[in-house]
């Protein structure tokens, strides 16, 4: 049997950096919207890599399927919640100016929060899809 030293060690070394990079993309994506989406994809990719190397079960122990589904749901809630908060603060839906005294800062916080929602959702959806695929092949011999 051929063992997987190379890929295993490689994945181990890479993973923390990938996670860090994902969040870096999120926090620095504010000037060009969409950071949340890319970050979600990258974060999901990190776990996909771990699952490829350590097996689905190992990853699902840390990241159970129900948790991932909730992430997908939670992101939408964050997104809509930010809108509702701005509404409660007397502005229109997603009127970020409401989030801080300084309009620019408010915009920044708002986009960051919304992108966080996007990140969490994209991460949840992507990992769910990966689980779906990775979990299916098992029934074949």
């Amino acid at each position: 049997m051929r063992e997987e030293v190379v890929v295993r060690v490689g994945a181990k070394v890479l993973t923390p950096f990938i996670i860090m990079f994902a969040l870096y993309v999120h926090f620095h994506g504010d000037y060009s919207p969409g950071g949340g989406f890319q970050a979600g994809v990258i974060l999901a990719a990190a776990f996909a890599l771990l699952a490829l190397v350590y097996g689905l079960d190992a990853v699902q122990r840390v990241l159970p399927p129900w948790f991932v589904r909730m992430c997908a749901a939670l992101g939408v809630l964050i997104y809509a919640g930010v809108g509702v908060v701005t509404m409660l603060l007397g502005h229109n839906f997603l009127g970020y100016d409401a989030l801080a005294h300084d309009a620019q800062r408010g915009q920044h916080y708002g986009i960051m929060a919304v992108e966080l929602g996007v990140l969490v959702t994209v991460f949840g959806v992507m990992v769910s899809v990966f689980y779906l695929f990775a979990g299916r092949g098992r029934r074949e011999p």
Partner: protein
Amino acid sequence: MSEHLPILQVVVPLMAAPLCIFLRKPRAAGALAVLASWSALAIALLLLREVLSTGVVSYAIGDWPPPIGIEYRIDIVNAWVLVIVATIGAVVAPYAITSVEREVDPHRIPLFFTAYLLCLCGLLGITITGDVFNVFVFLEISSLSAYALISLGRQRRALTAAFRYLIMGSVGATFIVIGIGLLYVMTGTLNMADLAALLPEVWDSRTVKVAYGFLGVGICLKLALFPLHLWLPNAYAFAPSPVTAFMASTATKVAVYMLLRFFLSIFGGHFSFDVMGLDLVLLPLALVAIVSMSLVAIFQVDVKRLLAYSSVAQIGYMILGLSFASVTGLTATLLHLFNHALMKGALFMALGCVVYRIGSVQIGAMAGLGKRMPFTMAAFVVGGLSLVGVPLTVGFVSKWYLILGALEKGGLWMGVAGIVLLTSVMALVYVWRVVEVAYLRDFVGDDRVREAPWSLLVPTWALVLANLYFGIDAVRTSEVARGAAEVLMMGIGSS
């Protein structure tokens, strides 16, 4: 909070959808879906009231003023469609709680309600938004959740049906996004009102005409206009019953709304009818759809699929009304939007009751159900008669305006009126095939089969009674539809 009604219309189902996943119990998720869909209906009704009293309601997302930011803009047309969608959403949600027990895997039920609410959110969003790109986004939200909903059907054919719908729906959506992009390139705006103001300057350009074509084909794919309807019959036949009831009553209606909004409000009636000859393109398609699909429906043995083909034919009626290029014709279209939602909703929900008890809607399996499930089959009969267009049902009201619209045009259009009537008779044939089997054959199935539970019957009969109520008192609906038609036509072809 009342100034936020436009956004709440979308946000309430949008926020409830993920919460359904958090509530991992099927019934809790269902209860939340009911709550959300009822709130959506209340909001839609409030919006309609506001629009009727004050005219157009506008809401700027994120405080960005309209031409730049996304604007939600409600006039009488989309207020009307919102009410239709929200009504069906509110009726089907409680029905689904019981219905999915037999039609969806238990562990997928929270997912079902999530997708249901997302679909509702998408459809409401398409209707309410005043931004063309936002239309595309909501269209995809509703479509993706629709694919998921269809695939939840128990039979494996639900999967292939969903897949085919996905392929055709995505092609349609891509066509729409091409059209939207071209419009943006030409005008630099995505705001509908802005587009409507800017487009006349560039009417002559080929790009605008190409955009028009892409949008037309894309939307017609979504609304299953013959011959782009191929995805619909199987999708409706194999989806879980509440999904079929919901989709058949709302999804294609919203697509028709999109067609009206894009071609009459944004491009304008003058461009559509006088420059592009939209009526001349739609008329033959609508007629062929009505006749051929009615004919095909007659020979179906699966009643769900039978009604699905009937839906394609009924979409033909709506498009036919548009092709009259007159206020009366458009009134017929808008009325039929509402009326067809009521009748198909009632019919598919009645079928859902049948599925709940006997697990099949093959015509043979329904023999003798008239006695076993009297309320269910009575609902089916009333819905069917409405489909045929028997007076005192809503179906009659739309047929009335459709024929009136045709006769107003005089001449050869008499023949169009004749075809409408002929196909009503065909509807009678396919409806009656089922009725005859249910009432005049002896029951052959399991002896324990009895009437469907109240939790299914009450929503079903709510729609059945609506079929009758709005058939007996159609003054208000007719007036709203006529008002909406006048807004859309803006003085063109009014007679």
